[in-house]
């Protein structure tokens, strides 16, 4: 699933490890989501949306 995580992280100057710690997953999971190798659960997608103060559909697009 395509996503804007790298862009959103860059805007905040966050590393993958920072984001992983914030949403309580491993850095490898964030890396896999960014590379579109793993589709996050609804719970993780919502946690990411809350973390970036936006909506799930703003971060993820099903293309």
């Amino acid at each position, binding site marked *: 699933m395509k996503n804007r995580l790298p862009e959103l992280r860059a805007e905040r100057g966050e590393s993958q490890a920072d984001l*992983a710690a914030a949403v*309580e997953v*491993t*850095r*490898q999971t964030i890396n*896999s989501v960014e590379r579109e190798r793993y589709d*996050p*659960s609804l719970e993780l997608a919502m946690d990411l949306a809350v973390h970036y103060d936006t909506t799930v559909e703003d971060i993820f697009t099903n293309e």
Partner: protein
Amino acid sequence: MTTTATDPRTYRTTYTAIWALGAIAFAGLIVAGYPFVGSLAFFLAAAVAIGLSAQSEAIMFDERDEAVFGDAGRWTIAIVGLASAVVFPTMTALRALDYVEWPLWFAHLGYFVAGLFAVWFAMVLLARYQR
């Protein structure tokens, strides 16, 4: 990238290594003729690994690991199921025609596979019930 004592990768690697060491010690000590000591070594390793997991504040395993384990389990069941569906009926037919003998280990393997799929079927029913 470097790892530190609090890096989740360090905990994951240590946790996995402790379980692996326990299993190797268990098998090695049985082969060496010390089965009781082997069992103790395995239980000790298990206690250390579980203790590490409990006291660690790092995220060692998350939803992606669950998905990976789920895929691996599905593929394993599929491979064992397909192999069993070919091998066991074929061997049974050949045995019925007196072309082959059933070795004892093959009968034990058959019991193991039957038990494995009995557990799998029970887990399918449980998972369906929970949904």
